[in-house]
């Protein structure tokens, strides 16, 4: 593995992230809109069953959403790089495809974790009480989930050559992933077919891990659906799988 290459891929992403103000602004605006417009509206409709307001319940889901969008966005930039030729510069270098995938995966992880951390700062506003340990736990989970979703995004990017596919990916992959992730409602309350689809979604386990960390003592319908160990095992296993498959696909020569 070439660590210089991994380092410089991450550095490039970070530099571009800092430079592109609009990306940062929309990354922060989106969760705010969901929390305070959708969340506040829905909390009138959804009675707090176990004493937890709806805006608090969706907080892990909103963190998950932030991670989902920023990780996918970062990975999908590979398609831009293909379109504008820069990806050839990377592919022609004496760097193993594994390093490229890990480098791009970590790029997404860095920018996505930064954005999730900013959203996390909102917890007192929502009336949540988180201890230092919990905050640390959330951050570690955020890193793992970001890496998992980023590598999933890289896998997607291997199938597309032009940025016109961007809206296809957004509408048919990213949005369904968000809605079928337990972000907005507990998985255990879903009808069977939807519950099955939800269990096939990597993001579900990420959001569930965040629920485990943020509401460790919660029981009843709004509690986490799986154990934290299960969540983390699935996330790590999927990350590993995505990395291996993506590296293989990049290896393919025409």
């Amino acid at each position, binding site marked *: 593995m*070439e660590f*210089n*290459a991994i*380092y*410089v891929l991450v*550095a*490039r992403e970070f*530099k*571009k992230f800092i*430079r592109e103000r609009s990306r940062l602004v929309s990354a922060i605006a989106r969760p705010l809109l969901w929390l305070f417009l959708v969340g506040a509206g829905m909390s009138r409709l959804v009675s707090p069953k176990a004493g937890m307001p709806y805006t608090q319940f969706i907080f892990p889901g909103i963190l998950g959403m932030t991670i989902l969008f920023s990780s996918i966005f970062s990975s999908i930039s590979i398609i831009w*790089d293909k379109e*504008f*030729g*820069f*990806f*050839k*510069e*990377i*592919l*022609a*270098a*004496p*760097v*193993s495809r594994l390093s490229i995938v890990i480098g791009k995966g970590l790029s997404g992880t860095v920018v996505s974790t930064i954005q999730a951390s900013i959203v996390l700062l909102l917890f007192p506003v929502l009336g949540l009480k988180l201890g230092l340990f919990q905050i640390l736990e959330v951050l570690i989970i955020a890193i793992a989930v970001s890496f998992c979703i980023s590598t999933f995004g890289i896998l997607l990017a291997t199938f597309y050559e032009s940025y016109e596919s961007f809206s296809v990916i957004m509408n048919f992959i990213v949005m369904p992933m968000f809605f079928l992730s337990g972000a907005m409602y507990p998985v255990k309350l879903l009808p069977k077919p939807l519950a099955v689809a939800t269990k096939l979604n990597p993001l579900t386990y990420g959001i569930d891990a965040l629920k485990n960390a943020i509401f460790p003592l919660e029981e009843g319908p709004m509690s986490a659906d799986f154990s934290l160990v299960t969540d983390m095992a699935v996330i790590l296993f999927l990350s590993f799988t995505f990395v291996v498959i993506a590296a293989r696909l990049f290896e393919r*020569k*025409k």
Partner: protein
Amino acid sequence: MSIIRVENLVKSYGGLTAIDGISFEVEEGTIFGFLGPNGAGKTTTINVLCTLISATSGKAFINGHDCAKEPSNVRKSIGIVFQDTTLDKDLTARENLVFHAYLYGVKKSEIRTRVHDALTFVGLYERKDDLVKKYSGGMKRRLEVARGLIHRPRVLFLDEPTLGLDPQSRANLWGVITEMPKKHNVTIFMTTHYMEEAEVCDNIAIIDNGKIIAEGSPEELKKTVGGDVISLRTRDNHWSRQEIKKMFGIDSEEKDGELYLTTGRGDACIPELIRGLGDMVLSVKLQRPTINDVFLKLTGKAIRDEDVSGMSNIKEEVRAYRRRH
């Protein structure tokens, strides 16, 4: 030693054979020109040599490494300027080069000087902190050449480096390219369709429909289509013809009031001609066969339509002649 060796290389896409059994060698430290019309298979050949695509059959070696079996060693030995730009336009020129240096594992302590030297070499140091999206086409090309040199490759591939540039940028870039073999100890493999450029190469291979149809130094290739033609206007064509016959033993033809004579080395004849004819000479023109003439003879078509005239070439020669005398 041959730094590039290609043996019977074939690349097919389904039913289409993009390269059809080509073989050639490139000597270390030379400029090798790969010449051919659109779709001839130039870029495909470069892609195989750069290990970006695998050949259907045949072998290719760079710096002694097999392109199919040791891609990593091949990649370390080469720099590439692709036909289409591959710069990150949202980064500055310097950042593009630093990125490249890290990607190729250049030692951290050396990156600064190498980036500085490369930018200075192509004359972009002043503009190093500009975003590449603000660069002109010619500047982008030069930046890509600089980037290709950062990791000190043994071979630099240039796929149509001057395509689409204005004459001044072309001349500028061309100056950079011809300096490289000595200054950076690198072998140049370039594709082009500009005849003037092909003629500055040490060796040329002409490719058409995936096959190499001629190979050799520009001089060797041009010899295959006959000698130089000198045309002159004089005060007295009749007298001049007789004098020329006496001096060189050549019969000259008269056409539209001008005299035409065909010789092996026109440039060497002209001084003697002028000494012999003295005041009688009004003007002299030298027309030499071009690589395009070679291509025309071999395939019956011009490489690219816009280059058929070869006029610019003749004007250059005359201008150079005037400067010398």
